[in-house]
């Protein structure tokens, strides 16, 4: 119930495609009502993670109801026909388990982590709330206040989060990714039980959901349980996720925020680009290698040049998030050293980016980046939570298990020309927003 938000930019973005069949060995099956079941066996401990992922997120919200996907996620803990309000998490907890949920632009996921012997219990609870949600006006209103407090903690109290919000509205001129997952405050204030229930009825159905179980179980053990609890839920109408698209981007955009709450200036830039689903051929893989080469660590171009040689920055980073249904984002951020202005650091950054686009990238750089990325796939196997998270994100954003499986191989086969082409295609100012965060002296308007 943290009911927390997944903002797209964590290190999971890199991580999120570190899978292949030899990595996770997922087994899959589809129930007759259209619900996909995926099982990843991990026998390290007698524990399981049980997750249900819905292929719906903030970008699927009706216009004017921003935040309804996330609000519904909170309300899913507020009671069903057979589970009284607030009881869901308490039942899980008194059975020694933990539970939570999260919402992004493209998906909403619910999970419980329990001892293997409690799997059937949580499956029963989760299956029940796929159809039987019951909401009281009183609970809805008080939970709405909780969400407003959540928004205050995450965004209204934080200048960098406010700048991020502005950046996304500037990056997307038309597509719903421009709205924050948590919603705009004035729209959250108007959200009702009716809004939530109509969203629920439209999108929460087995044919729009994926069951993922990881841990000390096999598909053979899960199948009869899934048939028993999820199987009887009738499939709903087919859901086609078709969002409005971006027009051509013709002007580079800049957003800036200056606040007395900021003492350390920083600059970031984000480019709109393709995602796994929308990318042509190898582009999404080449962009991951590119992000690694530009700012992926202490051997990266920006680190070497801006941090070590020129001593103009104290930190740099570059990232690419391809795990999205519609658009991918490629981002770079730089924190200047000492009193260097953001204008000066931006100039230095642009010089480096030009260099990458026009001068050669070495075979050695490509090889090193690919090696580092694929090592992540091995580390991912070491964690019980990584597999279901990676698989859930992939399957709710139009990817297949086969794509996941082929990830290390595709990363290893990225060629120099792919990376150069991806850099020239993506690092184009008119497709970008540059964000500037600066301190403001007290008393200055």
């Amino acid at each position, binding site marked *: *119930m*943290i009911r927390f938000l997944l903002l797209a930019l964590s290190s999971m973005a890199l991580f999120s495609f570190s899978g292949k069949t030899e990595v996770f060995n997922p087994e899959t099956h589809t129930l007759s009502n259209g619900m996909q079941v995926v099982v990843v066996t991990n*026998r*390290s*401990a*007698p*524990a399981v993670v049980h997750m249900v992922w819905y292929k719906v997120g903030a970008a699927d919200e009706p216009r004017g109801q921003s935040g309804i996907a996330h609000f519904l996620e909170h309300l899913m*803990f507020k009671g069903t026909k057979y589970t009284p309000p*607030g009881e869901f*998490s*308490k039942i899980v*907890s*008194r*059975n*020694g*388990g*933990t539970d939570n949920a999260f919402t992004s632009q493209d998906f909403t996921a619910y999970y419980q*982590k329990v*001892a293997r012997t409690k799997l059937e219990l949580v499956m029963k609870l989760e299956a029940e709330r796929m159809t039987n949600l019951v909401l009281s006006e009183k609970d809805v*209103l*008080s*939970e*709405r*206040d*909780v*969400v*407003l*407090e*959540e928004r*205050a*903690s995450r965004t*209204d*109290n934080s200048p960098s989060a406010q700048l991020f919000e502005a950046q996304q509205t500037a990056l997307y001129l038309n597509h719903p990714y421009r709205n924050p997952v948590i919603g705009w405050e004035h729209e959250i204030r108007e959200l009702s039980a009716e809004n939530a229930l109509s969203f629920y009825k439209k999108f929460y159905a087995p044919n729009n959901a994926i069951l993922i179980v990881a841990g000390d179980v096999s598909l053979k053990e899960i199948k009869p349980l899934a048939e028993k609890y999820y199987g009887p839920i009738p499939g709903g109408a087919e859901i086609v996720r078709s969002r409005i698209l971006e027009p051509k981007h013709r002007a580079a955009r800049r957003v800036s925020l200056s606040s*007395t*709450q*900021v*003492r*350390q200036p920083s600059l970031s830039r984000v480019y709109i680009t393709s995602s796994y689903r929308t990318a042509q051929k190898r582009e999404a893989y080449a962009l991951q290698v590119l992000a690694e080469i530009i700012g992926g*660590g*202490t*051997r990266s171009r920006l680190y070497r040049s801006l*941090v*070590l040689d020129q*001593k103009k920055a*104290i*930190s740099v980073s570059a990232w690419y998030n391809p795990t999205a249904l519609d658009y991918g984002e490629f981002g770079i951020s730089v*924190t200047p*050293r*000492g009193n260097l202005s953001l204008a000066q650091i931006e100039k230095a950054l642009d010089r480096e980016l030009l260099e990458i686009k026009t001068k050669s990238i070495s075979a050695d750089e490509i090889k*090193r980046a690919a*090696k*580092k990325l694929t*090592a992540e796939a*091995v*580390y991912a*196997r*070491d*964690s*019980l*939570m990584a597999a279901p998270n990676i698989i859930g994100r992939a399957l709710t954003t139009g990817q297949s298990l086969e794509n996941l499986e082929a990830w290390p191989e595709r990363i290893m086969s990225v060629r120099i020309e792919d990376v150069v082409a991806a850099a020239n295609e993506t690092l184009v100012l008119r497709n970008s927003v540059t964000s500037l965060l600066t301190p403001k002296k007290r008393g200055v308007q």
Partner: protein
Amino acid sequence: MKKWLIQLAVLALLSVFPIEFGWAVDIKKVESKSGIRAWLIRNPSVPVISMSFAFRSGAVSDPTGKEGRAQFVASMLDEGAGDLNSEAFQEKIEDLSVRLRFRASLEIFSGSIQTLKQNRAEAFKLLALALNKPRFDQDPFLRVRAQLSASLRLDQEDPDRIASRVWYRSVFGNHPYGRPIGGTLASIYNIKREDLVSFSNSFFSRKNLLIGVAGDIGPDELSVRLDEIFGDLPLGTDRETLAEPEIQLEGKTIVVEKSLPQSVALFGHRGLKRTDPDWYAAYIVNRILGGGGFSSRLMEEVREKRGLAYGVYSWLNPLESVGLIMGSVATSNSRVKDSLEIIREEWRKMSELAISDKELQEAKNYINGSFPLRLDSSRRIAQMLLAVQVNRLGVKYLNRRAHIINSVTRDQVKKAAKRLLDPGLFTVVVVGKPAGISSSQ
């Protein structure tokens, strides 16, 4: 570079969840030829090895005026060692895909290394170099100092950080517990290279060392590796324990005015030490009061029933010389007063009224059931093996803990609650523009 509040929270977690396995685990105690000891849980199913270790000495040893020294050392250890300068050292780390981290908290200096099995020999060599022959070269020294000061500037206006800094400073005054782990913008510029050298020379020693290992390595090989990594460290001397601090300002309210829409409140008072006979009962008390995620009383009253806050928590923070119980909430300026009143009331109820058998049993079930679920990677298992040693709990403790928790009676919980909780002693720091709350005189 982790920060103050997080470090404390983690420290608290380590101790608060002192280990519990719902199923028996096979821990090997490994001893090297030169006498270095480690605890190992082997899991050959993934070719990854995780090691966590700690020296008993942290930011509390920072000299006055040089606060932040231990953290400065932590930030410098991967910046060059032996014949590898910073760049060469970093190249190796990247090429081997090693995850090497060092961190200073109040009372321990810890490190962790995660490596693919195929790269272990070189990875462990890097760790050995970092601990035995750190270079602390001028160039990275200046850069890291700039990074540390940027991070301090980032913290300066963060309401959670402000609340934490002010709370510890108000409660502990000049005692080392009252000082920020990361230092201040002034203090980190007082720290010289020789201060870092003196820290690593005095505290990186075998007597001070604790190690937990998990993953794809057997005891025989580990024993050899332990000598390779740690064998050249000096034996060292026993560490002095800190004087018990005098706690100041109990029962006060401090408002730090900031123009924010939401106030952040941090509160707490003296708690129990980890060695206290009532520790486990107090642990259960905290679980029921505010340490239980969604099913705690605070969460129920503040969030679920009234929608006053997104989160409200309490936790035990057993420092070596004093125990604390603390809590936090973030609520709109207009409602923070109500939230704090409800929290005080729950604090009072918990200290005065008995809990039901059902509530006790549910708390025990959660404590015993959920702990092993957190150990879901070799990294977390290694961390846990280290935490048990930091808390001096002994290797058998792991398989005994469920029994210890289950043996706590209702009367013991009641007695512990009475000892532990006193809302009249709250020191509360509120950062924001809280309506109807002002600093006490």
